[in-house]
């Protein structure tokens, strides 16, 4: 079954899972920090297993896309045919999404330099008042 069809099937079968975690990340060229919120349906699919491909598949597609002559993906079969990820805990699922959706140069070097570039936190630790959202930075 293709990944897209597996996602349809998972959404019909599984209750969405709203994780308690969020991932804050930033880099020198970003105006403010970003906060990655895992999708509840993706969390449910990752925790059930058998839906998502290994995360390296996305890295391979990213390599293809980074080529200057990139026009379209020709290795989409990696998403569909690579053996699927087994069931994960909530924390493992969040780490998978970090490695998939946070820029690689940030999570691979999260603790190098003058201060951390990334932090996994509880959603309740994030400010609710967003008046000054564009001034948010990770604490040193």
């Amino acid at each position, binding site marked *: 079954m*293709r*990944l*897209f*069809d597996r*996602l*349809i*099937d998972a*959404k*019909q079968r599984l209750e*969405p899972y709203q994780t308690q975690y*969020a991932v804050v990340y930033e880099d020198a060229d970003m*105006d*403010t920090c*970003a*906060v*990655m*919120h*895992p*999708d*509840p*349906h*993706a969390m449910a699919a990752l925790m059930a297993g058998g839906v*998502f491909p290994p995360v390296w598949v*996305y890295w391979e*597609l*990213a390599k293809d*896309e*980074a080529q*200057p002559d*990139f*026009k*379209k*993906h020709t*290795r*989409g079969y990696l*998403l569909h045919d690579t053996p699927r990820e087994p069931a994960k805990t909530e924390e493992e699922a969040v780490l998978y*999404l970090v490695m*998939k*959706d946070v820029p690689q140069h940030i999570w691979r070097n999260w603790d190098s330099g003058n201060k951390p570039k990334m932090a996994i936190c509880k*959603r309740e630790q*994030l400010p*609710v008042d*967003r008046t000054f*959202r*564009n001034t948010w930075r990770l604490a040193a």
Partner: protein
Amino acid sequence: MSSFSPNHHGITCWSNNRQEGGFLVRDSFNTSSVSDMGTGSQNTNFANNMANANYSAASIVDRRSGVRTSHGTLEYNPSPQTNYCRHEARNNNGGNTSDAAYHCFACYGDIA
């Protein structure tokens, strides 16, 4: 259950998010996560990549005091992105980005 070929022409990905008063992904399809990129600005990350960067996207936000509209923008720098799309909500009065209680996004195109 429907089966889609790589070049189907239905909605490929969608999400309905709250940014105002604390970020929340209410519901979605083919979304692995949503990144809050700042006031009114979000990246929707796709679970199944798009086949190429020539897809179409739209976003809409709740209307408040008749001043808010929404712009969907694609990030094309440094190269086309098939794994996410950035979309923003902006006010009509000056065009500043603005958080919304309902910030919805839909994407149409071929999938990888």
